[in-house]
């Protein structure tokens, strides 16, 4: 390609590219908090008018936002005791229930949607712009949310799924046994002080006692069995299970080992670190001592690197081969 051809190609580039998502709601929220600094605000006569407008807006918003739209996708789901025809509203406190042949789509305020699969039971718990919260008592949902992190929560009998900007499928039985599969962004699942971070392309088993260790969706079956054994089998067998996990781990499984590091008994942490570091070297500044001591700065630094590599592998899957140790494209 010569200079002229390059210039031609440059001239054909579009001058305008639409953002992949609507950025206005966040801009609106930010300028809303700064409205006091604008010159127009200094004009005193705006104050009573603005106050009245805000009051009306809040009243309308309150009425609007205490309920979400629901559409029947198949069959006739129940809202409370009423059969949903084509569409309806789910109010705070209402239960939505599907039978074995019905499905429904819930609009999560203005930030996303949740498909409720058959044999599921979901309650709307909080419907505010700052917090969107459902409870999944049993069944399966597919959630897609396009918002800043920690605006959308789903409570299950075993803990809470916290949206970090993502798409995922969450299933649970009424006791809390279930599975989380993340297909976009990242989800945190929390039970008390125990939390797991599940990035796109990863799965995690859930039990009534809390979240398991996440693993990539193409992890070999023996590795998955070893992870499940570590998470949920008798405590006395954990040292052996840990060794199994480490022996079977590949660089692609670094997200699992990062979680394992914080869950193994103290004497085994060094061994987990060494395996993790051999598969994905730590970033500069992250030391063995600090990581084994579970210092948050070291853990976060390591996670950032592991997560970045993992996302590159997932996003570029089928397009480029990414070295799972470094995150760089292989030639």
């Amino acid at each position, binding site marked *: 390609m010569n200079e002229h051809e*390059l210039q031609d190609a440059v001239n054909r580039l*579009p001058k305008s*590219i*639409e953002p*992949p998502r609507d950025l*206005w709601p966040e801009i609106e929220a*930010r300028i809303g908090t700064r*409205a006091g600094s604008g010159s127009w605000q200094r004009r005193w006569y705006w104050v009573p008018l603005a106050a009245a407008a805000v009051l009306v807006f809040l009243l309308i918003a309150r009425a609007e936002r205490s309920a979400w739209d629901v559409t029947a996708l198949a069959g006739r789901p129940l809202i409370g005791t009423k059969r949903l025809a084509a569409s309806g509203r789910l109010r705070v406190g209402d239960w939505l229930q599907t039978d074995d042949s019905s499905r429904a789509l819930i609009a999560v305020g203005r930030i996303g949607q949740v498909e409720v699969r058959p044999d599921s039971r979901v309650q709307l718990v909080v419907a505010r712009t700052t917090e969107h919260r459902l409870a999944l008592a049993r069944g399966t949902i597919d959630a897609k949310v396009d918002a800043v992190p920690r605006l959308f929560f789903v409570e299950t009998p075993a803990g809470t799924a916290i949206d970090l900007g993502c798409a995922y499928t969450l299933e649970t039985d009424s006791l809390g046994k279930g599975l989380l599969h993340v297909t976009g962004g990242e989800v945190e699942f929390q039970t008390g002080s125990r939390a797991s971070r599940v990035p796109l392309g990863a799965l995690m088993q859930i039990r009534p006692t809390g979240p398991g260790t996440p693993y990539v969706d193409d992890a070999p079956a023996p590795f998955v069995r070893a992870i499940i054994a570590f998470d949920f089998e008798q405590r006395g067998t954990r040292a052996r299970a840990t060794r199994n996990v480490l022996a079977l781990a590949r660089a692609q499984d670094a997200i699992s080992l990062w979680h394992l590091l914080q869950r193994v008994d103290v004497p085994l942490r060094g061994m987990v670190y060494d395996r993790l570091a051999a598969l994905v070297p730590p970033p500069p500044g992250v030391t063995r001592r600090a990581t084994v001591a579970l210092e948050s700065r070291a853990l976060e630094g390591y996670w950032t690197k592991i997560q*970045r590599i993992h996302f590159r592998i997932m996003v570029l899957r089928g397009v480029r081969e990414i070295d799972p140790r470094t995150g760089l494209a292989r030639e």
Partner: protein
Amino acid sequence: MSDDLVARAQAGDQTAFRDLYRQHAGRVYALCLRLTGDGRDAEERTQDVFVRLWDKLSSFRGESAFSSWLHRLAVNVVLNERRTTGRRERRVTPVEDPAALERHQGNPREGLSIDLERAIADLPDGAREVFVLYDIEGYGHGEIAQLVGIAEGTSKAQLFRARRLLREKLER
């Protein structure tokens, strides 16, 4: 139409401001995307630009076209951000993501354009900024030197380097 919107937004009308956003978001986002080489950074910078615009709108006197004034503001926001925070590590949603690039609509020679966009995103920061400002946005070396905080000669050298790297990349 745009003048009316600007005037209403200057008077504090958020609806008019939202319409201004709708009119100009694509142009601003394209600039941010190319200057940062990163989809998520571009979204954040686009938001920063419009928040800054809201603050600065009262200082717009109509001495130039609004779109040119906004464009200049956007360049300043992106370059200031980079100056104050330094080059941060690339985010995990790179423009290498083909889906992000293929969102460019209405491009009749999409193959070459997507390759070119990808190659621009892969340029070293300094070379990319100068290339985007000079070859795509039409700034002169003197202006770029001022905006980026480099010597004019450096701007020319970076442009030469950027073009060479792009040609090499596109020939592969």
